[in-house]
């Protein structure tokens, strides 16, 4: 395993007490694997992503374990984490508009990472920046390198973000909603770039999204999060075909997935709202919205366990769905 996350727990200190954001998350990432983390906004997926390289604000209390090739990152000192960021674990963020510095050229912003982590001359840095821009599919990169972010389109900016992220050949690429702010064409382009990078450089990719379409398109394996916990985890085909957790089931029914015709099947919404994240150690967090919930679900939290033969398919549910028969 390249990246092993075990029992990751994050809470934020606020004026009105501690607020739990991530509650005992386990997650693995293999070399060259693309894992999708999916969930509604506020489910803790972004917080999980940010905590990997210690990027959470000071008000965050993080416990558990994040091991990168066996090295523990939780509790690591700042200089050590800085060597990891950008070099080992690189990030792509949601808003290409605001995630790039408006007053620096894109070449400079890509060059910065190289200068920080690798010994290169000024000339080499620039040349490498041009190469990177061409790698992520930006036309006439030698000119674009001197552009400022506002001179590029949203899709181009996101490609620049990716170029910046892969500048030092990171082991793990964390992409937090990389396509959300983009139109459909630009979105497909970005996903192609990510896939291409995995194939050519062997980068492991952790992609965070609320969009099941993106997951279906690119991920090898899916992790479903709900209210700060992992509720299901499975290979992508398996998950779409046989969701075990009622939340996953609801999520699939609420989105127009391939194989179902929009218009004939009405999309179903999940009743209720995402709960306010206070600790509920002794209950299934989805119980209040779940059609199958009973006293057991409200009395004890289900562990994430393998079910129905497949070791790769895990779900945290006392009463998994029996979809196989219906489909």
């Amino acid at each position: 395993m390249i990246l092993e996350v075990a029992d990751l727990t994050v809470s934020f200190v606020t004026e009105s007490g501690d607020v739990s954001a991530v509650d005992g998350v386990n997650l693995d990432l293999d070399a060259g694997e693309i894992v999708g983390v999916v969930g509604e906004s506020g489910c803790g997926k972004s917080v999980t992503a940010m905590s990997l390289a210690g990027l959470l604000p000071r008000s965050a209390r993080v416990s558990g374990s994040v091991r990168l090739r066996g090295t523990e990152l939780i509790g690591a000192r700042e200089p050590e984490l800085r060597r990891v960021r950008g070099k080992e674990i690189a990030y792509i963020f949601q808003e290409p508009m605001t995630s790039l510095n408006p007053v620096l050229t894109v070449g400079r912003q890509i060059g910065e990472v190289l200068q920080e982590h690798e010994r290169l001359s000024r000339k080499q840095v620039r040349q490498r920046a041009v190469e990177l821009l061409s790698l992520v599919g930006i036309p006439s990169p030698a000119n674009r390198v001197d552009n400022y972010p506002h001179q590029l389109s949203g899709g181009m900016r996101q490609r620049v973000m990716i170029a910046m992220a892969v500048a030092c050949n990171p082991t793990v690429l964390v992409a937090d909603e990389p396509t959300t702010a983009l139109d459909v064409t630009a979105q497909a382009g970005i996903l192609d770039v990510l896939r291409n990078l995995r194939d050519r450089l062997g980068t492991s990719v952790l992609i965070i999204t609320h969009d099941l379409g993106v997951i279906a398109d690119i991920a090898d394996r899916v992790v479903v999060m709900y209210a700060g916990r992992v509720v299901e985890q499975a290979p992508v085909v398996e998950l779409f075909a046989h969701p075990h957790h009622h939340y996953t089931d609801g999520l699939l029914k609420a989105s127009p997935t391939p194989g179902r015709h929009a218009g004939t099947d009405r999309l179903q919404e999940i009743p209720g709202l995402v709960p306010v994240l206070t600790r509920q150690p002794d209950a299934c967090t989805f119980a209040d919205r779940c059609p199958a919930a009973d006293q057991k679900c409200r009395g004890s939290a289900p562990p994430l366990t393998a079910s129905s033969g497949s070791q790769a398919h895990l779900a945290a549910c006392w009463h998994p769905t029996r979809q196989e028969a219906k489909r």
Partner: protein
Amino acid sequence: MPRYLLTRAWHSALTLVLATIVVFLGIRALPGDPALSLAGEDRSPEALAAIRAEYGLDQPMIVQFGRYVERALHGDFGTSIRTGLPVSDMIRTALPVTIELSALAILIATVLGVGAGVVAAVRRGRPAEWVANGLALIGLSVPHFWLGLLAILYLSVATGLFPASGFVPFTEDPIGNLHHIILPAVILGTGLAAIIMRQTRSAMLDSLSADYVRTAKAKGLSPRAVIGRHALRNSLIVVVTIVGLQLGGLISGAVVTESIFGLPGFGKMTIDAVFQRDYPVIQAVILLTATAYIVINFLVDLLYSVIDPRIRVAGEAA
């Protein structure tokens, strides 16, 4: 030249014209016969007639205004009633002192203000922020002319470290010049430093929570690069604007500071003129101050566009 700058240039020109009209009308609003005011001591009918002819006071207003502008453009502001010297000569000797004082004060204020503002933002919620905030509040609340008085009283008179008053031109004795001007410059700079500090702090807090700073951190950049290259660079745009807008306050402050430390600058000349009812000097001072303010703020706009590429380079896509 980008569109933004053309607009700013047009606005500055317009403001300059309006300011000239205001000053001109102000002279007309002086109590009594302007010829009497301009004449000073010699109020014989011949002298008054000469002044009326010289200033065209017998002409229609619009002609008078035209002549006023023409003379101002040639640097001709008449003769001082108090000294009998051409006003332009008096300004020429006084101005360098004020410019040196103000420039030094801006320099000191920027270094102190930006430094303290960055520290306060980066060390948010820690003792360093409280100290910086407290000092800024005091800097904002202390009357600097009083601070000047205390400095003379307790630093100059008591210890003899600095001269209490007087001035030596830089060209004659650079060391002596700095020795005379450093204390007034520090005093004048405190108020501006406080304002710059507060603006820098809030701009830095904004940019430190910006997405691009998160990106910079995620790239593994050192705190120095994150703060200096990413956060501060964006905050400076705000600071530059503030310095431009505070110029009026600085000019006012310079007048007081000069009069306390006995520096022979623009300010002292102005105050002397007010009490001597030296109208030619007063109107020249007012017109020049307004012009300086307008011109410098236009330069600030130019600088602004140098710092911010979004203004300098027009977008091609998006």
